[in-house]
């Protein structure tokens, strides 16, 4: 194998010359996508084999594997070269993206082979996020199908501007030109609004190699390039190199008091020693004093380079902030509109708090509004209350603190983010920012002279939020009521937010779907926060079935202020008590989305107070609460009104 290389080395003067030539080659990153069984993995195997990237021991293993798992009869099954997981070889499908490397005399390539199954769309998106070109495979016998469209839309959303439509298995339709022309026309019609700069259709047989590296005589009617010719020639412009300077600060390097370096990768544009830069979030300006690298300072750095910058003045900069061009600045806002691709089995719920992460920044964020879901078949904008796995939608997002960003269309680095589930830490979604929202720019915090501390001192107490959670009928309201009476008797200023009562007023527009429950809790948590800010001891009595929202409420409050009280009464006992007759109706199926029946209750994992109510009176439960308060000396602190 690989005699090509031997010849090229011999042709070059020596190895160093040969390597220098290799270094000057440009790199193209692309992915293969499309529906299941359209031949993506086979195509990559064919590319690797025809560009002579496969070693003899690998080929021997492949021939072995083909006999065992192959789907191509007596021929070598090239797909087995890339389907590297046991489960993939056994099932004959691709589950996760594989990255392969090859080069031709003209260019180097990194190719991501991505899965076709809809359930693995997130893995296709992973491969697409770092690619500049997509090969969309279409089975000539099937034509353009839903998954062709879904993958094309996702590729477009993720910023890919160049597409090859590989009309594969052309051998199985007798190299039919009319069929090829029809598929091409179908695709062009569908893709005209996707913003691709180039769409190149090629009739192909990955299995037999037609028009992959060599021109096929069996498609003599085709005048376009072979796949490899096109991959070698296609011009992918580097928008980042031309854009305004962006430097997301990744790491502050402080080996000693005299050195404070801002380490990061230039996201776009260039920077030179002496340039003026601005800190994105504060607008403070400074000049670049040094560009530090091992082996000697640099005079300038370009996009893609990982460097350490020293500034001439002590401006406040930390990880998550950005150093930027003073004349062309990014947006800084806490509300924006974005395209979101959803990856997780648990649907995206507006109102739920997620962690939003950009390349170096991380903040709490909620989707405040799901504007619409995109139907991947016809681009229709559909109303939706949540985004299910693999769906794409346009959302308004609010972050707890402002972030610095550009529109994704202008900058693929500073315009992108991921969403992380706060409990499972799973990466649940990916976002591409469309634009900031004006309302965020125009509403500023009003500074107030009388603060929480002053208000609390006037009431001679420390504010707190006692958050009662538990099933309907568990005794939350009864115990909360008794606790408030005790507080009141000792002169404390309190307020109870009760689930049923709040639903008569503030939240009367909300129902009982998961999405509405999330919004219900978000509003109550915000109200509780305002009341604590007013200096009150707030008692919240809400079923609040989801961990994520209880955690969100906890994180809204000051440290130590939030006390989660789990009123733990078994389902059977609640159903037996059934003070409002709701269990009876729910169990008969007359009441939908009832917690514990057909809507889940997620038990608290580590509540501050765990009340086991079975066989106990409400008074005994309040005793437990009082003991807890005393043990923490909180009673005294409320007395003294300090510790704020």
């Amino acid at each position, binding site marked *: 194998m690989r005699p090509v290389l031997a010849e090229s080395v011999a042709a070059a003067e020596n190895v160093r010359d040969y390597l220098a030539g290799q270094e000057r080659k440009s790199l193209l990153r692309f992915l293969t996508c499309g529906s299941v069984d359209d031949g993506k993995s086979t195509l990559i195997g064919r590319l690797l084999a025809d560009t002579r990237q496969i070693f003899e021991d690998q080929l021997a293993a492949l021939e072995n594997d083909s006999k065992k798992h192959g789907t191509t009869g007596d021929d070598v099954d090239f797909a087995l070269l890339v389907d590297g997981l*046991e489960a993939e070889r056994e099932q004959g499908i691709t589950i996760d993206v594989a990255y392969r490397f090859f080069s031709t005399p003209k260019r180097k390539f990194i190719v991501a082979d991505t899965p076709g199954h809809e359930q693995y769309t997130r893995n296709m998106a992973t491969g697409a*996020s770092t690619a500049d070109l997509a090969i969309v495979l279409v089975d000539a016998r099937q034509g353009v199908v839903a998954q062709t469209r879904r993958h094309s839309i996702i590729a477009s959303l993720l910023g890919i501007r160049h597409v090859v439509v590989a009309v594969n298995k052309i051998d199985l339709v007798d190299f039919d030109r009319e069929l090829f022309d029809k598929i091409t026309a179908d695709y062009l019609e569908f893709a005209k609004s996707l913003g691709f700069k180039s769409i190149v259709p090629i009739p192909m047989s990955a299995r037999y190699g037609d028009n992959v590296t060599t021109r096929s005589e069996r498609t003599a009617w085709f005048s376009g390039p072979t796949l490899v010719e096109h991959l070698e020639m296609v011009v992918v412009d580097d928008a980042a190199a031309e854009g305004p300077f962006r430097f997301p600060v990744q790491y502050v390097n402080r080996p000693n008091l005299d050195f404070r370096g801002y380490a990061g990768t230039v996201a776009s544009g260039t920077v030179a020693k002496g340039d003026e830069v601005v800190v994105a979030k504060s607008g403070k300006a400074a000049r670049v004093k040094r560009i530090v690298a091992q082996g000697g300072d640099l005079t300038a750095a370009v996009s893609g380079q990982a460097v350490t910058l020293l500034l001439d003045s002590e401006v406040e900069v930390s990880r998550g902030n950005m150093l930027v061009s003073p004349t062309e600045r990014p947006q800084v806002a806490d509300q924006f509109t974005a395209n979101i691709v959803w990856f997780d089995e648990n649907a995206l719920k507006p109102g739920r708090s997620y962690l939003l992460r950009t390349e170096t920044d991380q903040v709490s964020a909620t989707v405040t509004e799901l504007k619409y879901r995109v139907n991947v078949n016809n681009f229709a904008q559909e109303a939706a209350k949540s985004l299910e796995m693999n769906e794409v939608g346009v959302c308004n997002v609010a972050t707890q603190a402002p972030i610095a960003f550009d529109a994704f269309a202008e900058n693929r680095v500073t315009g992108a983010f991921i969403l992380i589930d706060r409990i499972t830490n799973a990466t649940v979604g990916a976002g591409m920012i469309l634009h900031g929202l004006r309302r965020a720019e125009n509403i500023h915090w009003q500074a107030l002279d009388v603060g929480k501390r002053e208000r609390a001192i006037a009431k001679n107490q420390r504010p707190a939020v006692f958050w009662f959670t538990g099933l309907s009928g568990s005794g939350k309201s009864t115990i909360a009521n008794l606790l408030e009476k005790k507080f009141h008797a000792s002169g404390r200023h309190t307020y109870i937010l009760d689930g049923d009562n709040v639903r008569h007023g503030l939240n009367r527009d909300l129902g009982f779907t998961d999405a509405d429950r999330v919004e219900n809790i978000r509003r109550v948590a915000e109200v509780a926060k305002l009341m604590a800010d007013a200096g009150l001891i707030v008692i919240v009595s809400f079923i609040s079935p989801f961990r994520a929202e209880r955690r969100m409420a906890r994180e809204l409050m000051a440290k130590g202020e939030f006390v989660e009280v789990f009123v733990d009464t078994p389902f059977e006992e609640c159903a037996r008590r059934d003070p409002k007759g709701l269990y009876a109706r729910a169990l008969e199926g007359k009441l939908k989305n009832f917690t514990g029946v057909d809507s889940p209750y997620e038990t608290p994992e580590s509540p501050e107070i765990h009340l086991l109510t079975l066989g106990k009176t409400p008074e005994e439960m309040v005793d437990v609460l009082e003991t807890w308060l005393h043990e923490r000396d909180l009673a005294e602190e409320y007395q003294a009104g300090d510790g704020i």
Partner: protein
Amino acid sequence: MLARLTHLDRLEAEAIHIFREVAASFAKPVMLYSVGKDSSVLLHLAMKAFYPAKPPFPFLHVDTTWKFREMIEFRDAMAKKLGFDLLVHVNEDGVRDNINPFDHGSNVHTHVMKTVGLRQALDKYGFDAAFGGARRDEEKSRAKERIFSFRNAQHAWDPKHQRPEMWKIYNTRVSPGESIRVFPLSNWTELDIWQYILQEDIPIVPLYFAKRRPVVERDGMLILRDDERMKLRPSETVENRLVRFRTLGCYPLTGAIESDADSLEGIVSEMLVARTSERQGRLIDRDEAGSMEKKKREGYF
């Protein structure tokens, strides 16, 4: 007009970015230092990423007690020269049970001394992120792995449920006990590694260069008899042959190749015309189909 970044410049920048991301996001990272050429490149990149500071994490070598003697000498010399914090861990249970590649075979030996040893060390120090030098071009299950690769509290990899990895935005969140394996060299090929070693003049273990060495031909491989623990079979003889190694591991499990390449240029030109992959010299990969994936699921790097 500024020069465009070369291919190696881009690979270097990507790796440095990854190093810094881990240092900024994790409480207790560590770099696995296995002394081979990939580790040498990784070490070089770590020094660059934090210059002028030292890398803000220690380096861990899981010593199976069967590494080539020259590897151990090289390791200690590098730690002294660069002044990094070197931790060496040996699975003492394995030593006590006298686990070795000759009596127990490569599978058991590698599992006990390497995989279990690694898990012990990670648990002992409570590391939440561990850098490794694995590359996607090495092996097909590695081609499937993320740059930030999640491990559960049992250090296991679940290849069917990997976290999506979008752009260069890495999800570094883990719960207590869980960890992330981080592979800054994911997108490097074997050629890139050698090219970078040549360009940056990175020191590597002399075993990579051809020299006359005492080898025994066994099971189709040339094994360097590095010490007396390797007993000769009746038909075997030790011959001094001109050999070198493409990869380095435990000496009884690593085959030498006949070669006269005694310079970096020589190694690279030999590699360019090679007919077999580098892992072909590794006995541990050939034990069974999908053996790398299996080992990785158990916690191997």
